[in-house]
């Protein structure tokens, strides 16, 4: 068997057969202050719009069916979470005790828990690693533990952990991370005629490019702990949003 030759032939043939993603006719309008991906009709930044539209619609398609056309995917807005940073602040060990064999996750809300909707909240996430070993997280250079708000009607849809950047190691003991929690929806529809859902209202602003603030009410902080082995979230924190 001339393996090298057959593998090269297989690769070449596979690439020839591999179809590119459909190219929808959509536009992205990234925001400068708070980066967002906006997908509306008519222009050509294509593949990403398809991807964004698909994911957003899928997340809210309770029937489990994939959208039948790009038109159904278009007109959505996504807002990635801000870039968190590691804090230099430390806490007394007895304030956040270790949990045997787990990574205890504590959230410290630096300011008041009653916040005007639309205003971001800064929190500190304290990890107490008692696994007896360090563990690795992906995308640590630009944040990997997203924090958001959720309640019975608003679902937590964390921005995705970074990958392809670098990994980092969380050592045993206490690690403190600073995160910013947005108090707006995670996204909105730019199509004024679209049907708003609990998680995706119609965008506001004259250009329909503003993500509305979450409605006043009671929320809890939600964390994406998917990168943490054996996480143990120690406290449910309630945040009350009031009308700005």
């Amino acid at each position: 068997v001339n393996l090298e030759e057959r593998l090269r032939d297989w690769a070449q043939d596979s690439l020839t057969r591999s179809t590119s993603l459909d190219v929808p006719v959509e536009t992205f309008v990234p925001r400068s202050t708070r980066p967002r991906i906006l997908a509306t009709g008519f222009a050509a930044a294509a593949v990403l719009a398809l991807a964004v539209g698909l994911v957003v619609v899928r997340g809210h398609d309770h029937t489990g069916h994939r959208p039948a056309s790009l038109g159904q995917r278009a007109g959505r807005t996504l807002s990635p979470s801000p870039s968190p940073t590691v804090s230099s602040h430390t806490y007394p060990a007895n304030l956040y005790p270790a949990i045997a064999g787990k990574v205890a996750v504590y959230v410290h809300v630096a300011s008041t828990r009653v916040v005007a909707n639309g205003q971001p909240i800064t929190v500190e996430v304290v990890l107490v690693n008692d696994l007896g070993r360090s563990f690795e997280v992906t995308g640590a250079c630009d944040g990997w533990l997203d924090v958001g708000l959720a309640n019975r009607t608003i679902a937590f849809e964390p921005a995705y952990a970074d990958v392809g950047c670098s990994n980092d190691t969380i050592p045993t003991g206490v690690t403190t991370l600073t995160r910013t929690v947005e108090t707006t929806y995670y996204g909105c529809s730019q199509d004024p005629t679209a049907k708003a859902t609990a998680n995706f209202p119609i965008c506001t602003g004259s250009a329909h490019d503003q993500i509305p603030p979450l409605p006043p009410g009671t929320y809890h902080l939600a964390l994406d702990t998917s990168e943490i082995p054996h996480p143990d979230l120690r406290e449910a924190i309630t945040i009350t949003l009031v009308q700005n």
Partner: protein
Amino acid sequence: VNAAPDDAQGFASWVGPHLTVLNAVAGRLVSPAADADDVVQEALIRAWRRRSTFDADRGTARAWLLAILVDRARRHRVRGRVVELSCGVDDADSFARPDSIDLGTDPGRGIEVMRLDVERAVVSLPRRQREVITLHYLADLPVADVAVVLGISVGSVKSHLFDARAALRSRLEES
């Protein structure tokens, strides 16, 4: 270009040349094909969102995008939404094998069978070997870039390549 374009159209153009490879690699790491499409799409979203983290000094755009893709494929498997392809011959059989083709009547179809034999052999490899073979041959990444994409050492890549080639050679000789 040391940074990924920050404008949407520029970014779409930037990733465009790599889409075929991303699709092809995803198709070998997850199944069914619809899930592979999802993995590519999710990878592109992440790439866009984290475009500011791309650093050409640390690797090529293709390697960066593939790293994201491989990560997404891994998460797909972890979530249990995708059947592992590496758990046995039965999985590889989900890829059609036209046993009934008459090789004597159409040389081109004989080549097709040979390609499918390679395909079957590749997708039946253990996950890491499959990743290494796919990235090295299909994505045409040098060993050093494969190591970066998978987050393992160059030595490990070479080891997996060696084992994968041995397994492929054995399976192809059997077929």
